[in-house]
């Protein structure tokens, strides 16, 4: 019975966190977003060197062969510094699909290049969480036709992983599709709309008539977004506490006012248990598969709610300065907002949690 990080996990956390703190200060985030970059090669290369890109990929395929808890720690670290790099889709969701449903050949072809950072794979499956407009992809022989919206890490990817209307998974080349950037509130992330028109596609054979792999991918992605929010909200809370200790009004530091102090305490009290929920949900993916879906749903939904609360209150603690671009607090605010809506907004995800435990 040891509900804690191992020495190895703590070291990983420290190495990734330390690297990101120096490689990815707010100024470099600003710079990247101003020129429209959502995947800064230099930062990504450093992360790949530390094993982040291949975190889930077995050593024999060029990765470091760690688990989802390690991946969640990386995601949290990325959220902490709002890093403009692809991770959730390319380094977690796509490897889950390839490892679970890919052929030996496919794994060998793609995963070493993902692990090295040479290839990025975007993931477009949002219509399986909630279908909008006319999106949806249909297979015909070896081609796909249709549209996928909200393709995660979509603009930076070389290769795209999509699902047809029966949840079968395919790889297509980004160069073979029409791809439109969707502008969102979070400029550190890229999402794309892609249009396929008899585009040649390579099916992952394990996904034929088997929805499991899509579900596994969604579970993993949700836990990663929850971890990202944990990181981002953690930073916002830290910044609020720091500000409350320094900013003076009415001849006192504002943190000595009960109203401000209690906002900080409420944030901390709501956020701290989230860490344990994310850890458990990440751990459960492999170790307690019966609970994986339920816990992924709860991690996603609960972090979305707590994240929203922290994002708002931390901004309030900063007063007007929190509302300006000067401190850059809004980058975290928006990243939390993005994480909330992607792969299912809370009400949608909670309803899936009801299904997962047989309530409906």
């Amino acid at each position, binding site marked *: 019975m040891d509900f804690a990080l191992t020495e190895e996990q703590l070291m990983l956390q420290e190495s990734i966190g330390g690297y990101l703190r120096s490689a990815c200060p707010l100024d470099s985030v600003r710079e990247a977003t101003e020129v429209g970059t959502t995947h800064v090669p230099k930062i990504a290369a450093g992360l790949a060197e530390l094993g982040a890109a291949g975190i889930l990929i077995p050593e024999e395929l060029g990765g470091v062969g760690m688990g989802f808890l390690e991946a969640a720690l990386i995601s949290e670290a990325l959220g902490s510094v709002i890093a403009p790099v692809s991770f959730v889709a390319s380094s977690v969701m796509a490897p889950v699909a390839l490892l679970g449903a890919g052929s030996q050949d496919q794994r060998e072809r793609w995963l070493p290049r993902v692990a090295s950072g040479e290839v990025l794979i975007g993931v477009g499956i949002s219509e399986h969480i909630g279908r909008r407009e006319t999106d949806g992809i249909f297979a015909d022989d070896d081609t796909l036709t249709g549209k996928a919206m909200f393709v995660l890490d979509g603009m930076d990817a070389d290769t795209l992983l999509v699902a047809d209307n029966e949840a079968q998974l395919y790889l297509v080349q980004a160069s073979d599709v029409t791809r439109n950037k969707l502008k969102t509130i979070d400029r550190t992330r890229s999402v794309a*709309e892609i249009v396929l028109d008899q585009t040649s596609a390579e099916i992952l054979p394990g996904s034929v008539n088997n929805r499991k792999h899509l579900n596994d991918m969604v579970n993993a992605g949700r836990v990663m977004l929850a971890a990202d929010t944990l990181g981002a909200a953690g930073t916002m809370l830290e910044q609020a506490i720091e500000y409350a200790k320094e900013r003076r009004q009415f001849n006192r530091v504002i943190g000595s006012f009960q109203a401000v102090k209690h906002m900080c305490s409420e944030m901390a009290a709501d956020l701290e248990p989230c860490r344990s929920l994310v850890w458990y949900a990440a751990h459960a993916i492999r170790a307690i598969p019966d609970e994986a879906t339920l816990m992924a749903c709860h991690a996603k939904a609960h972090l979305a709610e707590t994240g929203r609360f922290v994002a708002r209150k931390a901004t309030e603690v900063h007063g007007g300065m929190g509302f*300006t*671009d000067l401190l850059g607090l809004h980058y975290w605010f928006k990243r939390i907002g993005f994480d909330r809506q992607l792969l299912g907004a809370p009400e949608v995800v909670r309803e899936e949690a009801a299904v997962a435990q047989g309530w409906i």
Partner: protein
Amino acid sequence: MDLAYSPEYEQYRMEVRQFLDANRDQSPPPYGRGNGDGKARDWQKLLIENGYAARTIPKEYGGFGGEPDILKSHIIAQEFASAGVRPGHSGDNRLVPTVLELGTEDQKQWLVPPTVRGDMIWCQGYSEPGSGSDLASLSTRAIVDGDDFVINGQKIWTSGAQHADMIFCLVRTEPDAPKHQGISYLVFSMDTPGIEVRPLVTMTGEATFNEVFFTDVRVPKHQIIGNRGEGWFVANNTLKHEREGLGDPNQAENRFREIVDLMQRETMDSNRLIDNPTYRDRLLSLQGRMLAMKFNGMRVLTSQIKEEEPGLPRWIIKLQGCELNHQMAAMAIDSMGELGILYDDGPYLRDQGRWQQRYMMDLGLIIGGGTAQIQKNMIGERALGLPKEPKFEKPLN
């Protein structure tokens, strides 16, 4: 309780409508600033002549010179809004009443007529980086040098500074006086040498506000409103006027209609968003709050018509109204799912991205113009009679 308008006011409403029908061709676009190509100036002139703008400002200062009549003002606002026509203005609703009440005759002649015409645009120089909630601790200084004040310091949250002709500004003129007693209220041109305006970008990505820097800005001594050291009290009028606009229940009602429309229009998995019972229940909770605020607004309006102090129903408008707007935006975003994160532009953006924009802007309003925390202090102390926090003589911690 009688929610009808008396025949006199129904008649007035008809007049306003007839005026709008006959003249709307001459109106400038609904939104905009300044007099632009002159169309806005002509429009404002026409409105003043008919008593639809600057209604209660005396004729000698360029207004219509009417008696205050809150119901007429309300009818004018409603009719212009529902016709989608740009309303007139009364100059600057913070500056003009202050000058009329406390300015010299020269100052009134100098400042009020062009302001009312729309030829003199103002910005407000109150807040400073170091004095947000604690406005009276401001540190921009004005030192007397000959016939001038010489100003050095910095203001923030100055909306419209880049377009303004003039600024009304609080500066510390008596550094040794207690903090509320050392402030003066000055007015001066934004063209005065030594003023630098830097846009202040907010989380929405827009530069609605500015920082304004003063370096040896010379302002003639007679450009003070009220006495030296009394600026804090002069400004309190202005602050009162500013706060009233925030949390307007009519705005909340309009936004509520928009969100219902969105949720009836938009689908997910082929179901309308409003057919999702969880979203619907949340929408209905917001409707209950919106209606309570709407009727509360009618109660406040009634008090104002009767020249009674509305008390608590008015004190709470900003706190509750801004929060309600923020919650409506949050609900719209949530129900749209992934579509809710879209921003700026693009083919799938709903309602021009307004909901995200409002979600952030409303948070800014919850913080600005007196944070929610300060609002709660004020309600507790002024409306409920709870004691203030004890004061400290010396800085602590």
